């Protein structure tokens, strides 16, 4: 039986479309064998606004990845995001009915089914239902209740949902390129899967993916996902603010951000003036670095504060014993960890997709964490199928047919 499996993660991001090809064998560890990228021209805030150019961009990325990995890509795990997506927790309840009160597999399935029956707005659909913990007769934190004795069993789950139509857009686009979408995953979840170690997931970590169009965040604690969220604000906003404030074209603002950006204000700048007089786009222009840093730091600080507020409100700020991990292209901003440290009052670090091996420079770039995480997500899914008994039978074909029956 084949033990090695090719899994492709595809992120249709706001600044780049990125396809990563991973080889997964036996366990979940992926070896990255291909990477394809294309500048993204038809995405805003993580969502497609111009399908025809996105189609071209996705195709380019796929072709490049195919070329590098020397495989023909037929299916992908697709990342999704957008302001329409919601994360919330839900509880399922189930009475244990067997005469001996011993919890069996059927009970576990039933309680999960109950938890999945969430009340969504009619235009929303479920993207993930992620199991957190079981409790039996009020005893919390049980990972596997099978075989325990009890009367009432509960399960907590984290649900991620989104607007059906808006989730469907990228799926339809990808299908249009003759690519099967194996499954979709929330970008924030994928980034967390790529960057967190087992220990970080256990201790409690906040992962923030600072993208160009949107910022996703995910909290892992006790080994399970506690909270997810998305803000439709990202690096594009930083650049747009700079373009507006420094009165330069957006493209130039983007470049200034990358070349001279900083997440904090450096009070002791020797020479705060950048002379752009040799610049043939805007001759004679001078830029005040103090202004640049002011504009940037205010925007980035605001992003962190909005996230912090949300987490506080959800009551998870004290769960983050392993601090904050930053990824996405925005994590390249100098002093971004310093700013995050100040806002969250926690240690912050740049996330590395260290839990997979392969092409070295792909893994070192924070903007690939989503795509790499999608491979991990795919590996999880293709490895085990509930109620099928063991890993060996869990080949992708079965997985697909499992998903094929829905309507």
């Amino acid at each position, binding site marked *: 039986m084949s033990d090695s499996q090719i899994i492709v993660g595809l992120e249709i991001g706001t600044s780049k479309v990125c396809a990563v090809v991973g080889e997964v064998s*036996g366990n979940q560890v992926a070896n990255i064998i291909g990477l394809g990228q294309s500048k993204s021209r038809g995405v*805003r805030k993580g969502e497609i606004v111009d399908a025809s150019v996105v189609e071209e961009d996705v195709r380019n990325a796929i072709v490049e990845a195919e070329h590098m990995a020397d495989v023909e890509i037929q299916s992908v795990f697709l990342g999704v995001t957008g302001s329409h997506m919601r994360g919330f927790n839900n509880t399922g309840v189930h009475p244990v009915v067997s005469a001996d009160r011993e919890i069996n597999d059927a009970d576990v399935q039933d309680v999960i089914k109950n938890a999945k029956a969430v009340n969504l707005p009619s235009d929303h659909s479920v993207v993930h239902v992620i199991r957190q913990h079981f409790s039996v007769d009020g005893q919390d934190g049980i990972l596997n209740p099978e075989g325990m004795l009890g009367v009432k069993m509960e399960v907590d789950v984290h649900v991620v949902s989104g607007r059906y139509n808006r989730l469907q857009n990228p799926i339809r686009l990808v299908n249009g390129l003759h690519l099967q979408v194996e499954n979709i995953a929330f970008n924030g979840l994928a980034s967390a899967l790529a960057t967190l170690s087992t220990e970080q997931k256990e201790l409690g970590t906040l992962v923030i993916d600072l993208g160009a169009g949107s910022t996703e965040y995910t909290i892992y604690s006790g080994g399970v996902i506690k909270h997810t969220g998305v803000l439709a604000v990202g690096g594009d906003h930083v650049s747009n603010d700079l373009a507006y404030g420094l009165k330069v074209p957006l493209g130039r603002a983007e470049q200034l951000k990358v070349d001279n950006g900083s997440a904090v204000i450096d009070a002791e700048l020797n020479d705060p003036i950048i002379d752009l007089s040799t610049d043939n786009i805007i001759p004679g222009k001078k830029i005040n670095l103090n202004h640049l840093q002011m504009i940037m730091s205010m925007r980035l600080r605001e992003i962190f504060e909005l996230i912090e507020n949300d987490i506080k409100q959800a009551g998870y700020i004290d769960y983050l014993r392993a601090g904050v991990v930053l990824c996405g292209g925005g994590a390249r901003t100098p002093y971004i960890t310093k700013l995050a440290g100040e806002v969250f009052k926690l240690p912050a670090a740049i996330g590395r997709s260290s839990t997979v091996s392969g092409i070295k420079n792909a893994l070192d770039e924070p903007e690939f964490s989503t795509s790499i995480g999608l491979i991990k997500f795919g590996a999880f899914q293709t490895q085990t199928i509930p109620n099928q008994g063991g890993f060996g039978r869990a080949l992708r074909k079965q997985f697909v047919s499992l998903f094929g029956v829905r309507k």
Partner: protein
Amino acid sequence: MKEYDLPVIRFIGLGETGVKLVETLAMIGLNGVESYSLDTDNRSLSRCHQSKTLLLGKSIPCGLGAGGDIAFARAAIESDRDYLAKLVSEVDLVFVIAGMGGGTGTEAASFVARLAKEAGALVVGVAATPFNCEGSRRCNKAAGGIRDLKQSSDVVFHFSNEEVMHMSGGETTLNMALETANRYLCESVLGLCRMLIEPGLLNVSFGDLKSSMKEKNSLGSILCVESDRVDFASDIMEKILAHPSSLNGKAFREATTLLVHFSGNDNLSLAEINKVIESISLCASAVDLIVGATDSSKNSLLQVTLVIVQKSKTISSLMETNESKDFTPNEAHNLSGPENFMPSGDNSYVNLGVKSKSANRGGFAFAPPAPALETISPEMKESLLEAAANQEPNRKKRKGIKQEMLPLEIISKGRFEKSEPTVHKGEDLDQPTYIRRGILLN
């Protein structure tokens, strides 16, 4: 005089390159083959005399080509969907011929191929790809176009302009390279058709061709070479290896199936055939080899057509068997287990789309070999090929090396124009933070 039910074969040329090639093929004129030239560009159609033409997207309106604009090309093609669907219906074999990298050909090829496939035809794509110097954007677009075409066709034969250039040494001109490329291309398509419709000594039928494309969506190459010598083997082998589509022999090494077809007069030497086959087998070990021969008594030349079908690089074929299973516990076990990510249940679902795998075509039965094709003298053919390749070289030249410019981005509030505003607690977060906080830049 038709005693047999001739298979209906259509050449469909799309975009400027496709039109040029189909027009050339039409001028050479194969019995029973109908040629159609389709473009969004009036100028390229105006040069057609033998093939039937259609200006795509008349209702849009257009007439000056797509200028590389995929979206525009798509709109033009969609607007003529009905005509195209009719064009490929009740046809047995459709050749979809295009140059990849521009707008019309790139976009229309897979579209037409898909329609043809839906209509039940066997679909052969013939695609020319750009020179590297035309820029990576164009080359990527071409690679994407091939990918799409491959997904919608039974097989795609790929002709690389870049490879032609390499084979002819650095000295050649753009015009010469295109001319050479077009000649190789037309000869190959003709060779393939000949193989299918000439009366056979060792018959290679359409069924053989079809079954050699075991998996659909395969990529391959065809090449056709000629010799006027009686002891042709070494001459033929030399020409085969010098042919751009053999990729210096790499094409053989990556082949799963090779179809070798000899078309010559009645004193075709079996010993020489053997030599050719042996040399080819040496280059390509462990492949299916199909050999055919036909007698085209009017032709004093020996022509050898070689169809190479490449190994599919699909994911399944890559999987390696690794018996030692490793169940070392890892994070999936002590953390949220894999199944936990799975939504399941009732109605509130995302639809992942249908599995577009098996668009099963009905059986394709091929009639016995057809009567000999109409012949033209080799000289005539030569001059036709030349003439076609030479049409308006200047325009081509200008077009081919034009640099594509990135549009300049101008000051933008418009970055978020097309998207939903990001509003949080009544505050419009699209506005710069420093402005909302009332900071003045002094």
